């Protein structure tokens, strides 16, 4: 019966649908709205012609609704300039909290004669992240106009939606990224709830003078001629200024939001999920059984959460705080999977279960400039942990001083390769918020020191009379450098790592062979040791006059900094580095050192390097000592550093000439 009813309803629905389709041409007169036509009429004077497309208008308007929530209207107008233009646009939303009100798109032919309108069913509604590590409700609603107009044609989008996240700010990133094409004009207008006021924060000077908007109390930001970050000429560690404005609506008489408010809010969401009893307590106690040293016991827990809880972010709750709320610690332990906040919550729970303490710290991973102390906000993307420090903490460990709350060792349980005592590179240098119902604190997260992070390399090598090389290399890395190297090893099988090492050796020694290696990872002292040896035929080049050319730079893979050609504002974040290298190179029997380069040194604010050569018992000793301080560099600082690196690498490649005082003929023999 139910099936029959359903069938009948379905048939009725189809009949009505058919009627609507028949009516559709009459209902949808295909004319573009005035705002589209006005944008098309604007003259870009050929400014955008080198790209595949030009966005003529990118406009966002946000209205705060009485009783909470925001209504947003996004409008985009794009001109197709080349056939390979990607003409896709849309919005991110969460169907559990947000509501799409309308979505429309229009295409206008290049000659302006044909206009076509598209509606909801022509849009695609897809999940935002489709991979093995994230499972949640976030979606993207978009319309792909690629190929729907000829060159010179126009595509326009308009999407209206209501957002009820309740925690995040309204924000607009003016830097073009989706799609990465030039934008002729970009606007952002925010309208407050009646009787309320707007607070705002901008990352860039160009955005610090908003104009009044069209409604009482509203503000409007308007930028023109924006270019996306260029692929070429941009350093790999470049973080552009997003040209971002964040806005929030506050009751007229309210005090400004403080970091303490944010900390309390986070504690309300997260603290109930901390659970130091039951299975969590049993597991924690089992892990530390028989251990007496405080940090030994803590390390046992950190390693367990790092290694035994694999990364998987699942969000099943449907309320507006679902994405911020960790799973209960006991569930994370039972599941053996979780995301960063799950892992941090479990570790804090386990610490408390053995009588220790711990706090969750929230931060923005990957950009130390993303959190401004002047703008208390809940816009974080990562959670780690803070463990109370004591006098036994080594000086090299990442420690923060949180004032009244005391000193804490910072540890990231999500990073499977960086042990307690070292902080992951992406977590360093920015602000982190220690979450607590009381005494929460915004702290500057530590940055590794080159004294505690770096590489010591010792190479013993010999060259025979035919130029054949035999080399033995011992590399010992400490701190962050060790964690990075171990991470590279950890994600690969033995064969894959072996191939990686061979590629590295082959770069400077194309005929390298017989490579053998072993390695050892000591997480407690954050040391990674790699020992390898190889042979390389004809490494030294024998010349007919008894000279042999040899470069001491046996191993490639040194840092290569790309030139900063992009005009975009931004910064390059570089971690610490230090290297202490000694190569003992034994010349062929009967050969002497004919010419060794002069010592070389360089100093700039972030880099210090010394290269020297010595002769010891007939062997040539090459020494390199390098120290790079970590830093957030602007263009001038980065280019200075890059120039020093280039000079250093050129100095490293300088050849050594061995001479055989009595060359045997023929000189050009090969193995």
């Amino acid at each position, binding site marked *: 019966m139910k099936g029959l009813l359903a069938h009948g309803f379905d048939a009725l629905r189809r009949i*009505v649908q058919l009627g*609507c389709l028949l009516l559709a041409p009459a209902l949808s007169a295909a004319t573009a709205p005035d705002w589209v036509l006005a944008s098309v009429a604007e003259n870009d004077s050929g400014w955008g012609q*080198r*790209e*595949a497309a030009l966005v003529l208008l990118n406009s966002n308007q946000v209205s705060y609704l009485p009783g909470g929530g925001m209504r947003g209207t996004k409008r985009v107008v794009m001109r197709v*300039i*080349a*056939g*390979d233009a990607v003409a896709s646009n849309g919005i991110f939303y969460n169907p559990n909290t947000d*509501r*799409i*009100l309308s979505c429309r798109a229009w295409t206008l032919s290049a000659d302006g004669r044909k206009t076509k309108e598209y509606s*909801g*069913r*022509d*849009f*695609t*509604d*897809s*999940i935002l992240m489709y991979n*093995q*590590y994230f*499972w949640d409700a976030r979606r993207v609603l*978009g*319309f792909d106009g690629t*190929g*729907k107009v000829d*060159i010179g044609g126009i595509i326009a989008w308009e999407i209206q939606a209501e957002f009820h996240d309740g925690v995040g700010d309204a924000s607009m990133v003016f830097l073009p990224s989706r799609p990465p094409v030039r934008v002729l004009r970009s606007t952002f207008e925010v309208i407050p709830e009646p009787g309320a006021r707007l607070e705002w924060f901008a990352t860039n000077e160009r955005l610090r003078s908003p104009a009044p908007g069209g409604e009482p109390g509203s503000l409007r930001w308007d930028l023109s001629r924006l270019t996306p970050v260029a692929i070429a000429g941009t350093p790999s560690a470049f973080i552009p200024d997003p040209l971002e404005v964040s806005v929030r609506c506050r009751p007229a008489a309210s005090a400004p939001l403080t970091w303490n408010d944010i900390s309390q809010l986070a504690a309300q969401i997260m603290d109930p999920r901390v659970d130091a009893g039951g299975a969590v307590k049993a597991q924690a106690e089992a892990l530390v059984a028989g251990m007496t040293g405080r940090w030994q016991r803590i390390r046992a827990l950190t390693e367990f959460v790092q290694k*035994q809880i*694999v990364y*998987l972010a699942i969000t*099943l709750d449907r309320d507006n705080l679902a994405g911020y709320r960790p799973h209960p610690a006991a569930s994370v332990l039972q*599941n*053996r*999977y979780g995301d960063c906040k799950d892992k941090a919550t479990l570790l804090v729970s386990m610490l408390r279960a053995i009588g220790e303490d711990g706090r969750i710290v929230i931060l923005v991973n990957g950009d130390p400039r993303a959190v401004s102390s002047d703008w208390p906000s809940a816009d974080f993307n990562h959670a780690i942990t803070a463990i109370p420090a004591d006098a036994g903490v080594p000086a090299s460990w990442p420690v923060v001083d949180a004032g009244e709350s005391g000193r804490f060792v910072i540890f990231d349980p999500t990073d*499977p390769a960086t042990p307690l005592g070292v902080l992951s590179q992406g977590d360093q240098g920015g602000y982190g918020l220690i979450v607590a119902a009381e005494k929460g604190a915004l702290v500057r997260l530590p940055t590794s020191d080159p004294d505690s992070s770096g590489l010591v390399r010792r190479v013993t090598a010999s060259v025979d009379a035919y130029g054949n090389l035999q080399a033995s290399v011992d590399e010992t890395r400490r701190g962050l450098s060790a964690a990075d190297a171990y991470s590279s090893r950890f*994600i690969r*099988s*033995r*064969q894959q790592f072996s*191939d990686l090492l*061979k*590629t590295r050796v*082959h770069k400077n020694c*194309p*005929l390298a062979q017989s490579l053998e290696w072993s390695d050892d990872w000591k997480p407690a002292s954050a040391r990674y040791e790699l020992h390898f040896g190889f042979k390389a035929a004809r490494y030294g*080049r024998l*010349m007919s*006059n008894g*000279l042999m*050319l040899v470069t001491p730079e046996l191993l490639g893979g040194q840092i*290569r900094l790309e030139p900063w050609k992009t005009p975009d504002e931004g910064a390059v974040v570089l971690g610490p580095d230090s290297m202490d290298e000694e190569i003992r190179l034994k010349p062929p029997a009967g050969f002497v050192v004919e*010419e060794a380069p002069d010592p070389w040194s360089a100093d700039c604010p972030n880099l210090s390097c010394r290269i020297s050569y010595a002769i010891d018992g007939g062997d040539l000793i090459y020494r390199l000592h390098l120290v790079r301080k970590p830093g957030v560099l602007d263009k001038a600082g980065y280019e200075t550093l890059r120039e020093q690196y*280039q000079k250093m690498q*050129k100095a490293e*490649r*300088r050849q050594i*000439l061995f001479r055989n005082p009595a060359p045997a003929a023929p000189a*050009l023999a*090969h193995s």
Partner: protein
Amino acid sequence: MTSRRIFNALLALTAAAPCVRAAQVAWQPVSAEELAGRTSTLAPDAPAEVIFGTIDVDDRNYPYKRRTSQYIRFKIYDPEKAASVTRISALTLSVDGGTLNDVEIHARLTLPDGTSREFGKESIQTRSVEKAGVEQSWLQRLLPSQGLAVDEKFLAVSGIEAGAIIDYQVTNTAYPPPLFFAYNLQRLNIPVRKVTYRHRLSGSSELIPRVVMLNGGNTQASFKFDPDKHLVTVTGQNLPGLVDEPFAAPIFDRSLTVFGSYSQRNLVVIPRDPTIEHDVSLNREDGPWAGYATLNSVIGFYATRPDPEVRKLAAQLTATADSDAGKARSIHNYVHALYLRFLRDGKANLAAPTMFAYAPLGDVISFDKHSDVHIGPLDFIWLALALDRAAGLDAQAILLPNRTRVSFSPDAVVDMFLPDVCLRVKIGDEWMFSLPETPTPMPFGRLPWFNQGQLGLIVQDGKQEFIEIPNSSADQSVIANTGAFQLDPDGGLSGTAKRVLTGEPAFLLRERMRMANDGRRHNILERFLKADFESADVTLTGFSGADDLDAPLELDYELHWADFAETTKSRLIFRPSVFHGLSPSPFASDQRVGAVQFPYSWKETDDLSLQLPAGYKLESPSAPQSMPGDVLGYRIGLSYRPAKGVINLRREFISNLSGVPLKLYPRLKGWYDNVAQNDGHELVAVQSAR
């Protein structure tokens, strides 16, 4: 109306009585030995291992549905690295609410201590992956038009520890199932101890099933067919995990795979003009491929019926041609340009989903005026064929294998092994190829590398006939570099250079530039050049041949290389092979699992001059070694004119290799290592006063 009967020489099947299997979850016991293992017996580094897997495919209700049931037992050695097998995701599709497939997932986790936990429906999460966007107005809510919707069922097995065992049972029922099926029985980086594939084929007398096993010889595999039960059984043991290697063959050429398809024993083709009949009957002796060739031939017969518009167009296109080759080239260029415009304008998205349909040729010619007509790539082949014939040329369609997917053997009779189509046109006594239907801009007379070097099937009625598709020679795919450079005393190099590309390298670049305007093309070509010069500044100063498919693609550029030479107190040390001095060998690893497969033969030539700085001369110059050969050849020559301080370098590299067996890998690697070594040959210039 025409009906044709196609006989199958491989499998003569009778209908099988359908049976119903009870839907229940039954788990196989885990042995103590299975629980005890801590590392893979097949690959000690593997994060997980398939202890056994069974795949049962039930086609008794084909073509209405296909039920595929998998039971797989994994041993987990490293949970962190085994995420791909500890999380199961399956997609279900529907169109306007009509289900295209159903998926059921069940799992059981057995911990090393022997305790186990089952995961059933309550553990499965479901979400929509993709659907049509809808607005939430009252009208849309009343009248949802769902279109294509993709949902995901997801199960993350919780509580996994190293040493645990996971059993999965996944059942997928497809309505209706596709014509083709392919099951790869190996996994990326995860070895398989034992796998069994059972396929109960449809017993319908109307269908001809064809099933083949690929690469069974490389593994401990067996293939059995039981004609009474219509049952194909493939088993494999101790299969290694698949790995990515440079210049590896396609995955289906190096892994145990079952391919199959059904074709209709009685096929009815409805022509647009019912007055025209074309009857064909086939005999068993016509060969197992005769049916597929004939099917396409019949469709081609109807699709290319003489048409006044086509005749008129053919006459226009060939009016100025003074030879058959000129006529064929003109037609090829016209149809190819039309097809590229069809792709660029996005009309390809409207293409009919099946090749067993055709559009009126007039609609193909003016496709932009017929947005309501389903036009597919094959229609452009039919158009070219009709134009060729209207121009009086002898032309045929040829079904082609594609080496990017799988190598072709006529013994493996599965239609999907011949996925591409081209034409051949007789010019004098020779047949020349024409492929106007490809996104890669392709001149008349050429086929892409992946369609070469195998057999092609002539589209004709009756007896099957294959032709050899030869590989193109190295002389047809050439990268020629020329340049005149000056070295300065600081070690910098500057000069002008030219790169001329013909054949495959040019085709590849033209495809990347296909839809770009001149400004974008400039960027693409400059980036292409910069990739070869690690730290140099490259400025493209001009290019030609981007649109002329019969001309070479020529790139002119300036090179400024600040740290080209290393400097000592009185010497400059540099690699005179400016274009290849830093080119590494593609084969760093001395371990190799699979054979090497090069896509095509090619040749590189370099001819450059290098002016030394004033006051410098070469110190005891020496020459790198040449390694001449017909299959692999490398010649490098240096000459020096001391009076002018000019060095000339000529280099020629030829590769006529296609496949290299695994046992010859060490020799191949050694050869490439020597090329890299010789390309890196250094010269020393010393100040003359010394």
